[in-house]
């Protein structure tokens, strides 16, 4: 497919996933605050950092931060911006997405822009965030049912799962800071509530508890969110999906990575398969998570180089046209 179009599909997916994740994080954070009196900065700054915002001028007041992350169009990671950018990416490749996908995305965008959405935000915050999450969830449901699962679809998958892997790793990293074990806090309600919040931010609360993990949450929760092979939001399972999609695009078996992108994701997946949580804890989970997030960014760069940035110089050396 055209490189430029693949790039739009990739980013369309990433921005929608980002919007869903932001909504999820904000909703969970709000709920958490109902139970505890936690200093505002401590509670809201992590949320900003997860979204990649390090220069928020403050104040760290609940309504202001939520407004910044929901409506501020100067902030490309806000829900309103992300939905708008996703829709714009779809608009310029309308001939690639199905009519139903476009229709849903266009209507969702118009809803976010509407007065009705603002009112819902003020009157029933949870319902508002639910609706935002459903924009992405419905989009993928419609996509899976109405779009041929060929290359453009695969690039949508790559964007979605790469973004999701990144989000899970960042949620874990940032929230974990607030939860470094200190003797006086172990086992306290705040402590347990924060772990629940991490799990809820990844929609992992029930799946995690179904496994009946033995062990302290400091170990068991990161282990679940990093390594579980089939929980759909774990870092490992997301990267497995990215790898599957890249190999579906190239047609090469998963055991034979060749392009920069395939090799980068294969490396990280391999490492996640072999490493154990106990290996990571002594040095501090933060270092490991930073490393993972950086490597996910490198995968993104490699994808760009491999598929989107086609340069004649890379191809002119060998004949690429059988007709000549």
């Amino acid at each position, binding site marked *: 497919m*055209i490189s*430029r179009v693949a790039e739009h599909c990739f980013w369309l997916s990433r921005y929608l996933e980002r919007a869903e994740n932001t909504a999820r994080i904000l909703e969970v954070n709000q709920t958490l605050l109902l139970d505890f009196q936690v200093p505002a900065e401590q509670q809201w700054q992590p949320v900003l950092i997860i979204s990649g915002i390090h220069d928020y001028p403050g104040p760290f007041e609940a309504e202001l931060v939520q407004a910044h992350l929901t409506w501020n169009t100067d902030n490309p990671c806000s829900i309103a911006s992300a939905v708008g950018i996703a829709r714009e990416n779809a*608009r*310029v490749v309308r001939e690639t997405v199905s009519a139903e996908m476009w229709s849903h995305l266009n209507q969702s965008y118009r809803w976010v822009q509407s007065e009705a959405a603002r009112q819902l935000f003020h009157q029933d915050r949870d319902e508002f965030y639910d609706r935002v999450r459903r924009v992405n969830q419905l989009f993928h449901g419609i996509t899976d049912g109405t779009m041929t699962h060929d290359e453009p679809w695969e690039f949508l998958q790559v964007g979605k799962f790469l973004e999701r892997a990144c989000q899970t790793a960042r949620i874990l990293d940032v929230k974990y800071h607030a939860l470094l074990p200190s003797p006086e806090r172990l086992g306290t309600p705040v402590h347990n509530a924060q772990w629940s919040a991490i799990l809820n931010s990844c929609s992992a609360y029930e799946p995690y508890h179904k496994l009946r993990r033995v062990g302290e949450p400091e170990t068991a929760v990161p282990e679940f969110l990093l390594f579980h092979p089939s929980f759909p939001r774990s870092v490992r399972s997301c990267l497995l999906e990215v790898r599957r999609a890249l190999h579906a695009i190239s047609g090469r078996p998963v055991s034979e990575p060749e392009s920069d992108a395939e090799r980068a994701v294969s490396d990280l997946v391999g490492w996640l398969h072999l490493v154990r949580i106990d290996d990571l804890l002594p040095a501090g989970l933060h270092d490991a998570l930073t490393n993972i997030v950086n490597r996910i960014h490198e995968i993104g760069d490699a994808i760009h180089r491999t598929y989107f940035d086609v340069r*004649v110089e890379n191809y002119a050396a060998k004949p690429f046209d059988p*007709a*000549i």
Partner: protein
Amino acid sequence: MTQTQSQSPPAARPLFTGYRPHAVAWDELFDAERRPHDHCRLLVEGLGRLDCAEFVQRRANADHVFIDEGITFSVYSDRRGVEKIFPFDLIPRPVAAAEWDVLERGLIQRLAALNRFLWDVYHERHILRDNVVPADLVLGSKGYRKEMVGFDPPGKQYIHVCGTDLIRDKDGRFLVLEDNARTPSGVSYVLENRVVMKKVFPHLFQHCRIRRVEDYPQRLRQALASVAPRPAIDPPTVVLLSPGSYNSAYFEHSFLARHMGIELVLGPDLFVHQERVYLKTTHGPQRVDVIYRRLDDDFLDPNCFRADSVLGVPDLMKAYRAGNVTLANAVGTGVSDDKAIYPFVEDMIRYYFKEEPLIPNVPTYICARPADRDHTLANLDKLVVKAVNESGGYGMLMGPFASNAERAVFADKVRANPRNYVAQPVVSLSTCPTWTEHGVAPRHVDLRPYIVSGAMTWVLPGGLTRTALVEGSLVVNSSQGGGSKDTWVMENGQ
């Protein structure tokens, strides 16, 4: 209580009750005695059963379809946003099948003549040597491209898609207003209008038999594939080259690419290597055989035409002249739809085919000719004067409706550059009942059929009926706030 024109119509009034046709112009639905034309009977019965409130409700339904689907058009002079919805009126414009069949033959005849003319202009120039068309008008035309001299396009086809605008005079006779042989647009609205009409008025479609328009994209694709250069593999790779999403017709580019099942590409997606054209894909470069380009000649190749164009492909003309890629429409077709050349098309038909034109031109004065220029300047209050190389209704003087000051300004322009202007008598365009806030009222319309030509020539049944939305206005162009209607070619016997 008496009903005055300035109030909204009562909700319960049937749609056509109280409809007053235009005093002079031909009405597409009703005759002089306010009875429906034969071919309109079923339509008027079917629509006439609705009352105004029901009709307004259906209009709202139709508007939702347009907005939700993002069926838009952008207007260059409007800075409010990139996209606007193209106004659409729900009352269709019918054409009798028997009348259409004549038009179809006339349009095919005309396109064949234009293609012959282009071949002649870029080869032997017989028609210029025999003084049927003045050489200076042709060679001095903005659309003339010397790069095309001696080049043989596949099948000798220059014009693959043509939009020839037709109008009806006050006696109901069809005339050709102008040809559009470069990048005619609007067909996507024809197709989307039909979708909306079928959703909103299914019962009318059941009662009236209307020729289908949905075949257009596949017909066009077949035509383009049929003009691939000889060594192309089967099936040839056809792409649509667009300037991108900020172009006013982008919706159409995207629509057509999707419905034809071909890739929509931008200039930077393509490159030329060893005089062949390739597309940048996720699997490396892919050879391209036919480019349906919706880009003006000037922007096609910065190494040949405008050097500042970022919309085109460097060295595309080299690949084209080497015969390794087909461009549709060919480069240099602007010389055939030049308004200064238009008056000679009837003579082209006679010259090349020894036939009479089946559809006549509007009588035209060519200001490049001194006698015509003098006549024009002496009768500015009765004529429509047009700049030959503008489109979209810009650069035009509507003599009878202009002020003395406006006419004086225009007269100066004509005197300064007579070659750039032609004049025609004001034709009272036919009207069609159209919904307004005061109820159904006559509004002027024209018709743009689309002719597709490859190995064979095919005419889309009907085409885009463009409607002036302002009462009395004769300017129907979308770029100046006009709207459209669905055109129905009514099968025989209806």
